């Protein structure tokens, strides 16, 4: 998608994806599915994730994204297996807030995301 139209498209997708973060929906499955299930608007998060991927290092994988997210947020790592969805969602909200407080931001087509948000969107893009 050309940069200009992608930017126009993301003008709608980004606010929708980011507004719905950490809605706390239940989803069984592996860490990626549990992490990305918290988006209220899954399609918007996937769309935003498509824009996030080109901004990540070439060697980025699902595993490296999850590892980075867990390294920075041990509370999320602890809750990923067996934690209640509400608890996981709350932990992710705190992770996002901590990113913003400490200036850990990631820019995607001009939108200022927290690093955790960017990682979650990138994971959402994978399925």
């Amino acid at each position, binding site marked *: 998608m050309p*940069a200009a139209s992608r930017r126009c498209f993301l003008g709608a997708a980004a606010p929708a994806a980011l507004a719905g973060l950490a809605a706390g929906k239940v989803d069984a499955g592996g860490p990626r599915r549990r992490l990305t299930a918290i988006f209220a608007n899954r399609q918007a998060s996937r769309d935003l994730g498509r824009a996030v991927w080109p901004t990540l290092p070439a060697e980025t994988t699902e595993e490296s994204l999850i590892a980075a997210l867990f390294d920075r947020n041990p509370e999320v790592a602890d809750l990923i297996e067996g934690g209640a969805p509400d608890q996981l969602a709350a932990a992710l909200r705190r992770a996002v807030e901590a990113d913003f407080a400490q200036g850990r931001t990631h820019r995607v087509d*001009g939108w200022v995301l927290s690093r955790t948000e960017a990682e979650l969107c990138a994971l959402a893009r994978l399925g």
Partner: protein
Amino acid sequence: MLIDARTLPAESDIETDLCIVGSGVAGLTLAQALAGTGLRIVVLEGGGLDYDPESQALYAGRMLGNPAAGLDWSRLRYFGGTSNHWGGYCRPLDAIDFTARAWVPASGWPIDAASLAPYYARAVDILDIDGPDFSAEKWQGRFAPVFGQPALADALPAVVFQHSPPTRFGEKYRSVVERGRGIDAHLWANVVEIETDLTARTVEAVRVACLTGNRYRVRARWFVLATGGIENARLLLASNAVVTAGLGNGHDLVGRYFMDHPSFDAGTITFHGSSAIARHPIGSAIDAGFGLPPEVQAEEQLLNFNCYVRPATRETVDPSGYAALRELSRSITRGHLPPGWQGLVGEVAADLGGAAGGLWSRLFREPGELVARVYPEVAPQRDSRVVLSTERDALGLPRADLDWRLGELDRRTIVRGLERVGAGFARAGLGRLRIDEWLLEPGFAVPEGSFHHMGTTRMADNPRQGVVDRDCRVHGTRNLYIAGSSVFPTCGHAPPTMTIVALTLRLADHLRATIEVDGRGRRASAPAERLPAGTATPSGDMHGVLRAERKAPLSVS
């Protein structure tokens, strides 16, 4: 007394104690500060009492680097200088701006914020503002509520600016000159050369030329250049009869390290609540922006930074009727009428629709977006400079060209500062910021500056690092000083006017003390022999100057 230089006897020599070149903020601040001290002062102004296109054209020059406002309209050449179109924003520099920051090359002033504080306090009366306290606590409730949001305050402290009416220095201080308290202001008097003795250590006179053809000299004991960041450098570089590289330019610093404040809309915040909280109260004498705490600047190795936010409107420029109404309102709420208020009333009457529309938008419109406008510090860079052109103006003086350069630190500060603003709004749950697309391109240029011409005769204790010393005296000279923002080694994000006034008041104190030491009434020593036309001059390097200096008799400063 106001004197029309065109009527003075041609080729005459006028003697005085202090010659101030320029009648802008710095020149008139200095003149009024020294009025009534018994000192004879001559102020030389290139223009008249009002705008004149022919005189203004002497300011034309080419833009070679980053785009900026044209040199022939970003400053004004008539009595009162550029204060005649000043916007009125006042704020002192922050303490961090004076410090040497390891991540900012060529940073650090030889003076600190505390030493300038008493002069900032005295600048309040000159600038007609409400006091020296710029803390957010003092002004809480007088600026848009968004800037006081507790959720934002830690990450994005409110940065307060006071509005001067704005003070038009020509109007305000004309009466001081006309009362004749030892001050003569020559109008239409363009300085085309600074003449020195053979050592270039003592300035003996400035040569004055009028566009009508009249020429004469002003001889003085002390000279102060106060012609702005472009013209101060131009005059020094063009005064190359003795030192070929230009006066004060033994270390190739004059004209270099030019800085201006980029100022432009840089992003949009999709706002979750009512954007009315980003509206300033009607008639408020202050404005506010978001700054970056000094510890964040240090941690992220950024320059100082400020970002305004305002409700988005379709118009990028306010209608003229509304702009006039706003200026009237600001002054009236502070208990006085602004200068030229009749004209403002006329503008409101001529554009009633614009005034009403602007007021409606100001009071009731609540768009879902805020506009983020950045106003960052830029780093001093050696290659960002004023140079002499090969073209000459109507008086034969080489024109000044401007090569304004931005560096990666400047660009990183703009983008990273915006990211910090975006993070603050997101964390507080107020909205999400999207940075404008063109700022994502590497090496982006900024649309324009703020008419703040700074840094071209920078201050440093070491003559290898600065053109003037901490007293604003040109290194290597005994009686030539510079007033104005050209002496700023770094520029912070604060508009320069309040610091120009503070530094000039400090210079006035220094000159007063120098005069007392030197003995009032003693005239300058007789001018040294001047070189006949065509005689070889000492080379432009410092060694040439020093060799000549050893042969010259020592003079007491």
